[in-house]
């Protein structure tokens, strides 16, 4: 069994789907991420999808495809879409592709709804 190089931790709260990608995003893992994220979005039908990239150790341009594709899924189900806390490396690739012009990127010091923020 070949290991997966990324996993998703997701939760739905107040019409928001928060999905955090943990690990590496490349072409090898992109299909599994796409399917898992789309399934989560379609079953939860949220009003807002937040894709947390703070725990992405590596991302190449395959990750851009994953992000653009999930933005399209969010558009299809009528949900708003945000990227949360991309790492410096990930932000550099997003910037290079000009993705920041079409996707909202939000930097937070605490996770929404945690004790720290209250």
């Amino acid at each position, binding site marked *: 069994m*070949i290991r997966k*190089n990324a996993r998703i931790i997701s939760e739905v709260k107040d019409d928001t789907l928060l999905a955090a990608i943990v690990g*590496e995003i*490349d*072409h*090898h893992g*992109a299909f599994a991420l*796409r399917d898992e994220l789309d399934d989560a979005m379609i079953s939860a039908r949220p009003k807002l999808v937040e894709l947390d990239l703070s725990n992405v150790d*590596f*991302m*190449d*341009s*395959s990750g*851009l*495809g*994953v992000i*653009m*594709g999930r933005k*399209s899924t969010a558009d299809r189900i009528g949900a708003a879409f945000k990227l949360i806390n991309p790492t410096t*490396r990930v932000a550099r*690739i997003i910037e*290079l*592709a000009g993705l920041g012009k079409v996707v909202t990127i939000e930097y937070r010091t605490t996770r929404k709804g945690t004790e720290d923020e209250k």
Partner: protein
Amino acid sequence: MKSNCINKMSLTLPALSVNEGVGRAMVSAFCAQLNPTIEEIADIKCAVSEAITNCIVHAYREKQGEIYITVKIFDCRTVKIEIKDKGCGIEDTELVKTPLYTTDSSGERSGMGFSVMESFMDKLTLKSVPGKYTKVTLAKKLSPLEL
């Protein structure tokens, strides 16, 4: 001043997507002997990952084949990486380097692979003969060692 190759690694990997991670990890581990910065090693890993992915997705079109990787390091702190496949080849080597250009219609490929390679490395050379091979050569000069 002429630079000398001080070490060399050759690696052949089957064109399997799992080898994207294997290939970039092995190349970056080999380059680590020059004490690159974290940023430099991350640049190399990303560029190598792009080139290997192109071999798997475009050259061999997810079918069997082999990827030939050679890494040379020079005493002037330059890293030179060749990534070659014997896949379908590229008709127009300038067109494929255009940002956002992709032959993929699924919407899941960004067409940014060559832009990432060009942006993260100092030099990129692309040679291809349709039906024969494609070879990407990436070079990066590492920053001077801080003593």
